[in-house]
Every structure is written in structure tokens, then in C-alpha cells.
């Protein structure tokens, strides 16, 4: 009896979903199409990238790494997924960020959901003619990233900005596009 009630409730939910979505003016196909169209503006990011990068450590020392990125569309092209790996000279991975870029259609903003070194956050990605900028607010300081991606080169810098002081550059990377990737869409589980 209880199972029947649950089953009936689930059926009602499933049957009611499209109606509810239509009532709210939501159409999955249209939403995905809109998101896919918006993500085309970031198609230049897709592929595999590699190049030198440096960052300033808390001690003030400059730390050089080889940075790689693999980037590709996911969920039928409606979001973009990124994974970076920074290698020390001995080949050890010392920096491994992961990100998902998507469009918030209601707010008309691109959002980067980032995981890096145990830190998690959502940041607005502001598109420029040949790249993007994004900020991490940190109290009296802002961490400002600027990326320019063109002609197969991805140049990104990070600056620490404190009001009334000159910006301090603490990060720079210059990557070359070295090929295509079918990540992360490849390897989906088939029904059989």
C-alpha cells in the first residue's frame, strides 16, 4: 500500500514536471540551446595547453612551474570544464585547479565555479574581445586575473590590488595550444 502511494506520488511528480516548467516559462531545450550558444564565445579555450608559469610564494620567492590545461565542453556544450596541472621541475604536480564555466541566463553573467588547493568559490567571468577577467575579493584586497587568448597563445596574469597602492603581479602564465582533446565528454557510460 505504502509502495503504491510512493509510486503514484513519483508518477505525479514526473507527469507534473513539464507542466510546471512550462508554467514558469522554462523549456529545457531552449535553456540548453541558449547556454550552448553562449558557451560558443569561449570555444577558443577548448583543447590542450602547455607552457611556463610563475607565481610569487608567501616568502617572496619566485616559483617556476610548467602549467598545463585541458578544456572541453560538457552537458551537450552547455557548460565548459577545465582542469589545470602545474608541474614542478621534478615532475611533481603542485597545483591542480578544476573549474566549470557556465552562463547564468537569468543574470546574464558567466560564472566560474572553481576548486583550487582546497579553496572553492564562484566568480563572475567578464568576457573581453580576446579573453576574460575575473576577481577574487579578499577584504581590503582584490585578486584580479586578466587573460588574453589569441593566435594559439593563452597569456594570463594575476595581480594583487589594494586601493591606493600599485598592483603587485604575483602570477603569470604563457601557454601554447598543443592539440585537441575529447575530455571531458569522452568515455560516457553506454546503456549496455
Amino acid at each position, binding site marked *: 500500500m505504502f509502495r503504491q502511494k510512493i509510486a503514484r506520488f513519483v508518477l505525479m511528480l514526473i507527469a507534473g514536471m513539464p507542466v510546471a516548467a512550462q508554467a514558469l516559462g522554462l523549456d529545457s531545450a531552449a535553456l540548453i540551446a541558449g547556454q550552448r550558444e553562449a558557451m560558443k564565445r569561449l570555444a577558443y579555450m577548448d583543447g590542450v595547453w602547455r607552457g611556463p608559469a610563475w607565481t610569487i610564494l*608567501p616568502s617572496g620567492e619566485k616559483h617556476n612551474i610548467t602549467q598545463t590545461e585541458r578544456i572541453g565542453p560538457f552537458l551537450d556544450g552547455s557548460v565548459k570544464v577545465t582542469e589545470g596541472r602545474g608541474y614542478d621541475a621534478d615532475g611533481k604536480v603542485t597545483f591542480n585547479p578544476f573549474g566549470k564555466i557556465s552562463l547564468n541566463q537569468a543574470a546574464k553573467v558567466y560564472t566560474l565555479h572553481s576548486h583550487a588547493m582546497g*579553496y572553492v568559490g564562484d566568480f563572475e567571468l567578464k568576457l573581453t574581445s580576446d579573453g576574460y577577467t575575473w576577481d577574487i575579493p579578499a*577584504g*581590503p*584586497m582584490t*585578486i584580479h586575473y586578466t587573460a588574453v587568448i589569441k593566435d594559439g597563445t593563452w597569456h594570463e596574469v594575476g595581480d594583487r590590488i*589594494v586601493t591606493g*597602492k600599485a598592483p603587485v603581479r604575483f602570477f603569470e602564465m604563457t601557454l601554447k595550444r598543443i592539440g585537441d582533446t575529447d575530455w571531458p565528454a569522452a568515455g560516457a557510460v553506454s546503456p549496455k
Partner: protein
Amino acid sequence: MPELPELDQIVHGQLRLAVLSILSAVAKADFTFLRDCTGSTDGNISAHLLKLEQAGYVAVEKSFVKRKPTSTYQITSAGRTALANYIRNLKKLLGADFNRSK
């Protein structure tokens, strides 16, 4: 009178809140960097960093870089939780109008 959410007094100090905000965004920061970012003085920020350290909200690592003593600070898990709770309680305290205006 309705019960007001409590604000963690350790986090609530202007300079300590600034320090926690910075450390929530960077992996580590040294003493000089935190002092310069906040526009504070050696003595003032030392006192506030000690309070945060005693509360378990930041961890300090002392070392020598080029023969100079350096103190490097990092937010702890407790510090991160305290900052998140503080922001949540502050939003509650400011009320529905503030949350709607966002």
C-alpha cells in the same frame, strides 16, 4: 524581543575581519604582506594576529628566509568556519531587506 544572531567577536574586529578575508582567498601570506594590505602597523597587526592565532582561526609558521625571520599565516578550518558563520549571521542581522537588495 526577537533573539538576534550572535556575531563572533574575534571575527568582528575590523582588522581581524580584513585578515581573515585575505587569508580566505590566498593559500598563505606573510606578516609584511598582511600589514601592507591592511595599512596597519607592526604592533597593531601583531596583536590582532595573536588573537586570531589564540582562537585557532589562523596558524603561523615561523622560518628564516635569507637569514631573516619570517612569519607566514594561513587560515585554519576553524577560521574558515568562523568566517562563514559570521557572514551568515551578519546577513541575518541585517535582515530581509539587505538580502533582497542583493
